[in-house]
């Protein structure tokens, strides 16, 4: 196995969540939104938290800046337990944790520029410095000509850019993104994700992304946690989760990207995982030639994750066990991950 030590993981933890739980008490009974959550986000990470709707991911991100007060556990930002702070101290911490939202949440009665000035006013920055900072940020998000525009005059992508500029105004260490691209079309999503990546690399801001779309994680995250049923099902570096998802939900999230994912429709289906070394080779063709085993390709795709190409394929092998095992052995000898796909239903 190749050693893929991600240099980013060696950095210091900036967000640590320990044994976090959140229970809501609506009129009828109680709802456990989060239970026993433990996770660590390192400085410089782009950390994805992915889950189906209702899994508790939005509650989780709100626990990071205590917009939601956890019922159990602790949240540490830069080593400081923020669950123990007074309201006033907490507000100061929030200056250093920016947040953007699915619905942008811009102030509708303020121009783009005054939206960016808003957090600076709150933090008590002086007017001159604030104005300069707003101009800088408009430049950074690529909308210097929209300073005087009201949000209603901007497109969705432009609104999110202004929201990003606003979230960065007080030079935060962390940027939380709550489904920040879910209201945008695919090409706008791509450009917003590009901007986030740029911000992460240029300014060194740690980014936490909440999403239900695996493609978002794929495009920019280096680390991912999969949340299911109020708990973290699985977490780790993105490429290792993609290579070897252990839990059902992880497999489901990875495959559901492709509408008719490789849910085994028949017997003898195997999932193959390629990495950089093996994907460029014409392994499949060689396998067929060498083992005389005829395969049926059910599904195949190729992804670029965190700078590495990564492919997966689902093939159907013949009923004849001998031929099939020959093919499997051949593939394994070529360092390709092979795993049987269970039949659905």
């Amino acid at each position, binding site marked *: 196995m190749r050693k893929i030590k991600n240099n980013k993981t060696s950095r210091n933890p900036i967000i640590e969540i320990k044994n976090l739980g959140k229970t809501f008490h609506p009129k009828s009974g109680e709802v456990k939104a989060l239970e026993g959550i433990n996770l660590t986000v390192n400085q410089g990470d782009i950390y994805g938290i992915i889950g189906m709707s209702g899994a508790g991911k939005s509650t989780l991100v709100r626990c990071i800046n205590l*917009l939601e007060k956890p019922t159990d556990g602790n949240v540490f930002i830069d080593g400081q337990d923020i669950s123990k702070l007074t309201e006033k101290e907490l507000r100061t911490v*929030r200056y250093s944790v920016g947040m953007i939202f699915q619905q942008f*949440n*811009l102030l509708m009665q*303020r121009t783009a520029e005054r939206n960016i000035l808003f*957090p600076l006013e709150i933090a008590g920055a002086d007017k001159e410095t604030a104005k300069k900072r707003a101009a800088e940020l408009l430049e950074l998000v690529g909308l210097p000509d929209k300073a005087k525009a009201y949000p209603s005059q901007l497109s969705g992508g432009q609104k999110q850019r202004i929201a990003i500029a606003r979230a960065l105004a007080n030079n935060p260490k962390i940027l939380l993104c709550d489904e920040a691209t879910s209201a945008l079309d695919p090409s706008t999503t791509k450009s917003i994700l590009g901007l986030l990546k740029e911000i992460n690399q240029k300014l060194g801001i740690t980014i936490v992304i909440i999403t239900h779309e695996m493609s978002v994680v794929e495009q920019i995250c280096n680390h991912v946690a999969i949340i299911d049923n109020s708990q973290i099902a699985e977490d780790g570096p993105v490429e290792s989760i993609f290579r070897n998802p252990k839990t059902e939900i992880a497999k489901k999230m990875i495959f559901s990207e492709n509408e008719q994912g490789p849910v085994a429709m028949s017997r003898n289906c195997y999932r193959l995982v390629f990495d950089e070394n093996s994907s460029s080779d014409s392994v499949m063709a060689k396998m067929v030639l060498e083992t005389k085993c005829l395969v049926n390709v059910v599904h195949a795709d190729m992804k670029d994750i965190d700078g590495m190409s990564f492919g997966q394929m689902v093939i159907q092998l013949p009923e004849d066990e001998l031929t099939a095992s020959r093919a499997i052995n051949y593939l394994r000898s070529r360092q390709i991950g092979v795993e049987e796909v269970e039949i659905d239903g």
Partner: protein
Amino acid sequence: MDSTMTALIIQGTFETLYMTLVSTFIAYIIGLPVGVLLVTSDSEGIVPMRILNKVLDIIVNITRSIPFLILLIAVIPFTRLVVGTSIGSTATIVPLVIAAAPFIARLVESSIKEVDYGIIEASLSMGASPLQVVMKVMIPEAKPSLIIGAAIATTTILGYSAMAGIVGGGGLGDIAIRFGYYRYETGVMVITVVLLVLVVQIFQEIGMKIAQKADHRK
């Protein structure tokens, strides 16, 4: 119509405007913060205060449920205490404020509640204090709706002020009752009604225009 009557009607118009505008202004000084408090102290609000919320709610409901004509007469001793007399337009301001403040509180409450919670949440995420949320987010974001509310409040108070004519409250309502009703001077009645309608129209129009101009959502 003789010149004394014309003078009387002009004076009455000014008295009506004076009562209405001064009462609206004072009622807003009370009603605006109460309306804001009703929203913020709600169990879902930014600073939940259950007991305060309940108390304000009850006071507002009680005052709102007393018909103005009865309130007008019932507060006469209090009016005397404050103004020194219970007759004339200045005296009428007292019951008008008492009746209008809770009404305005409700109008303000509903305007503020229209502000998208996402925007409030965003400002909290940036470290805004509750006072900053009120002053920089809730009120400015609700401004167009608050202005429309103010136009409604002003015209309602104008209607109430005319009712005060029954106890010698001054203004156009007083003239309508004394001349138009007690002395059967239909001409005077018609003129006062037309003037009242005109004033209401003007207030309403101005309110709508300002609200439209102030709104950047479209």
